[in-house]
């Protein structure tokens, strides 16, 4: 009996202490959900490093509110992402959700965002359709159609007539294949073959041999970054460069995080993407400096910029709403927001809540002993073509 009462009192006390701080503090909690372990851990590492770099550079208060970053690991598993999102919103009182390393993870959170009216900032996942899943989703990375299409334009302008496409067989890969081919064909090119590689693929030998035997001018590739590096080595080992086949790809393949360890075979690869560590601008110089300082000399890649700009978007929107982080007000502020990112000028499309940005065509070169993606052409202010077309 006494034990029962004691338990009851303890429970009440616990309830009081957990209930109080949420209302008492003038803080905006941001729940950053990322794959920090598992096969996509490098995504989580880079995005969170970018977000931390932003807070290190700009401080942790905006519009009189203290910003608190809570990083949670979903291991790259969609049902985990969803559970963590619910916990963050219901138990921890998170006002904004952010992160999301892969398309399925972002998709899993969309219903939570809609029901709880929680602003959700996608910092990495790249399938075009994500922002359509909920009116509370916005994005600071980019979409695959957005950066595969310009590669098609570039190829057709640079004497490439016949192409084989080779992509990973899942959402983003199919997006990349579709939009590259569409643009390339519209400009008079010919896609002789479209090869899809299983996501869990141990050896590229048969696919590469197929590409070689089709004798195209170039092969267009989308693969997630880690696998991309492996592909690159086998590409040169099989003598495709000597056979006169050029490698053109999305920037995922020459990910700045591991580009340097790819060595010689990578040199000369042409890729299209929204950010390169070597991008020349004062903003980027400052960014790389602060990033390396905060994250003990790590090299920032495009994912980190997604994280950095995600925080920039949250700060800017809160500034505009004077600290109001409720869903409808926040999302209204997000629409049409524009700022200068390390990657160049960016803005949020008021119609689709997706990012409008420059896409750069880059070539891998040896710059002072380090391999870098050096920009050679710019396609300014591109919208996501998939949603632009749908309208």
């Amino acid at each position: 009996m006494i034990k029962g009462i004691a338990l009851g009192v303890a429970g009440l006390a616990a309830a009081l202490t957990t209930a109080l701080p949420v209302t008492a503090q003038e803080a905006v909690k941001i729940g950053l959900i990322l794959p920090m372990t598992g096969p996509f851990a490098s995504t989580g590492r880079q995005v969170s490093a970018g977000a931390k770099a932003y807070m290190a550079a700009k401080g942790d208060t905006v519009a009189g509110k203290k910003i608190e970053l809570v990083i949670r690991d979903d291991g790259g598993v969609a049902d985990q992402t969803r559970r963590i999102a619910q916990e963050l919103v219901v138990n921890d009182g998170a006002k904004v959700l952010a992160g999301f390393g892969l398309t399925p993870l972002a998709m899993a959170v969309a219903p939570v965002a809609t029901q709880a009216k929680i602003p959700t900032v996608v910092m990495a996942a790249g399938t075009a359709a994500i922002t359509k899943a909920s009116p509370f989703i916005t994005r600071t990375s980019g979409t695959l159609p957005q950066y595969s299409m310009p590669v098609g334009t570039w190829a057709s302008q640079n004497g490439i007539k016949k192409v084989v496409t080779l992509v990973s067989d899942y959402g983003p890969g199919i997006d990349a294949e579709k939009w590259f081919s569409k643009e390339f064909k519209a400009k008079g090119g010919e896609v002789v073959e479209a090869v899809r590689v299983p996501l869990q693929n141990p050896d590229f030998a048969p696919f590469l041999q197929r590409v070689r035997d089709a004798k195209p001018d170039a092969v267009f590739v989308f693969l997630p970054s880690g696998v991309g590096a492996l592909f690159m080595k086998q590409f040169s080992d099989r003598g495709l460069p000597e056979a006169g086949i050029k490698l053109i790809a999305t920037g995922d393949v020459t990910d700045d995080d591991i580009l340097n360890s790819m060595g010689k075979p990578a040199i000369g690869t042409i890729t299209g993407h929204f950010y390169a560590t070597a991008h020349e601008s004062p903003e980027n110089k400052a960014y790389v400096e602060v990033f390396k300082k905060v994250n003990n000399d790590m090299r920032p890649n495009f994912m980190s910029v997604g994280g950095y700009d995600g925080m920039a978007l949250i700060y800017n929107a809160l500034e505009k709403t004077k600290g109001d982080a409720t869903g409808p007000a926040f999302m209204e502020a997000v629409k049409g927001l524009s700022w200068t990112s390390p990657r160049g000028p960016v803005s949020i499309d008021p119609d689709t809540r997706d990012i409008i940005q420059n896409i750069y065509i880059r070539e891998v070169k040896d710059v002072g002993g380090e391999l870098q993606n050096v920009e050679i052409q710019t396609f300014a202010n591109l919208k996501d073509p998939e949603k632009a077309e749908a309208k």
Partner: protein
Amino acid sequence: MLTILFDGIAYGMLLFILACGLTVTLGLMNFINLAHGAFAMAGGYITVVLMNRYGISFYWCLPASFLVTAILGLVLERTLYQWLYKADHLDQVLFSIGIVFMSVAGADYFMGGQQQLINLPPELSGRMDVLGVGIGRYRLFTVVVCSLLAIALQLILSKTRFGSRLRAAVDDRRVAMGLGINVPLVFALTFAFGSGLAGLGGAMGAEILGLDPNFPLKFMIYFLIVVSVGGTSTVSGPFLAAMLLGIADVAGKYYVPAIGPFVIYALMIVMLILRPNGLFSRGIGR
């Protein structure tokens, strides 16, 4: 398409080296060791660390990764595995899958989640044309090393005293002990040797298969297919099975890319229906 055939053989050889250690533990010692891939991964990481951090030649890394993983295997066998020899298979599976997850998390913690890359010595990279057939130098190297290993393995098992002791210990543990064979020692050495082979396979495979913390999970299925198709009572069974799977996988992906990934599974099902105990089973279900 001799190039495709050659690529298939090289890939099959690699699968064989990776999986034959598992044949030994599973078939000869009757222990289900799902953590086999973890030893392969360890071998891979040892090579990466030795090459990239200490600049040691790739040729020295191979024996080093064999030795270190063999010692690692020996230590684990003495401290953990030996207590489970008599446990039922479910316990063994749970135990070894636990080790897999710990190794995945450990590799992620110490080495990071990214794909590890090694730079081969120049004489091993690139390809050459032999009578019009394009042959990758590194794949040729893999084929040569793996064939030598396969032959050596077969000879050790069938011709040496250690081999006959091992076979005796497996066939009837009690009688073997009664004859004065030190069965625990034989098993420990065999386990260490099998782990070492996995480590060597991981080191050689880093270039072709890639290496990241999920290696043991990614390749577990391939190991198990090789062992189940090949049967577990000989070395030549898994060897042929690995060859068959390697060639079928590569050829399937080349000729019918749309259904390429399914070819080996289809093949496995057919093989298991025709020869449920493996290609060269002795005809007795263990």
